[in-house]
């Protein structure tokens, strides 16, 4: 299981624009590097990141091999209601990780 760090404010005012920061441990092996045996190291990257707010998708990113190792993605959303933010990463070799955060909107 990959280690995940997310930064979501615990409380926000209704209608406030909040920043969501995410970081996940992953090698993001590009598939273009040559190993010690002279052969290309096979690609192993995260290809898709999505964020849902109470089940509704608010952000989606398709990643390429040009994203640095341990992908960091930060974006914004409007705090509309109290609930759960779910972050999901999926990629090569069946990689999948999910993390959730609870936000209280007052």
């Amino acid at each position, binding site marked *: 299981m990959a280690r995940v760090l997310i930064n979501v404010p615990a409380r926000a005012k209704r209608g406030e624009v909040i920043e969501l920061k995410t970081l996940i441990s992953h090698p993001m092996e590009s598939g273009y590097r040559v190993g010690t045996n002279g052969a290309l*190291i096979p690609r192993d990257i995260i290809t898709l990141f999505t964020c849902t707010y109470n089940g509704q998708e608010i952000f989606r990113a398709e990643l*390429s*091999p040009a994203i640095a190792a341990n992908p960091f*993605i930060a974006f*914004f959303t409007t705090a509309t209601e109290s609930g759960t933010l779910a972050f999901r990463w999926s990629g090569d070799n069946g990689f999948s990780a999910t993390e959730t955060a609870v936000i209280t909107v007052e």
Partner: protein
Amino acid sequence: MPDPPFLATNRRCFLIRSAGFAAGVGLLSAVPLRAIRATPQAMQEAIRKIVGEASLRQGRVRLDVPPLVENGNTVPLTVSVDSPMTEADHVQAIHIVNEKNPQPYIISATLGPRAGRASVSTRIKLADSQQVVALAEMSDGSFWSESADIIVTIAACVEDLH
């Protein structure tokens, strides 16, 4: 004193052999390198694929990236777009492409009016000093772009692990 048989060689023979060797090495090393490098043309094609038939205009997009980076393995980058982010007028997607990495795509992010602010930050790999272009796709179908030239002192991606 005559040479021992396994070293028997003369100047002409040595030159021919070394020229052949050099050509062989040149061929071996040049072909795969050329094959895995994107080119400015590849970036233009990638932009064409994203934009389609729509027109592409400069402006409204801000691409924050250091002009000089020491380590191409991790380059912080922020794209923000000037937009009110309302139902009627918002940014639908932000794309980033590059010129000289092995392939031209970096990231394609989809957002909506709920984002509140059209801004995405990430960290990327750069294999060479090159131009990076950020494209914003608006809800009315128009495309806006901004480019930045970045000088990289230590490249990423294609170095060998020895």
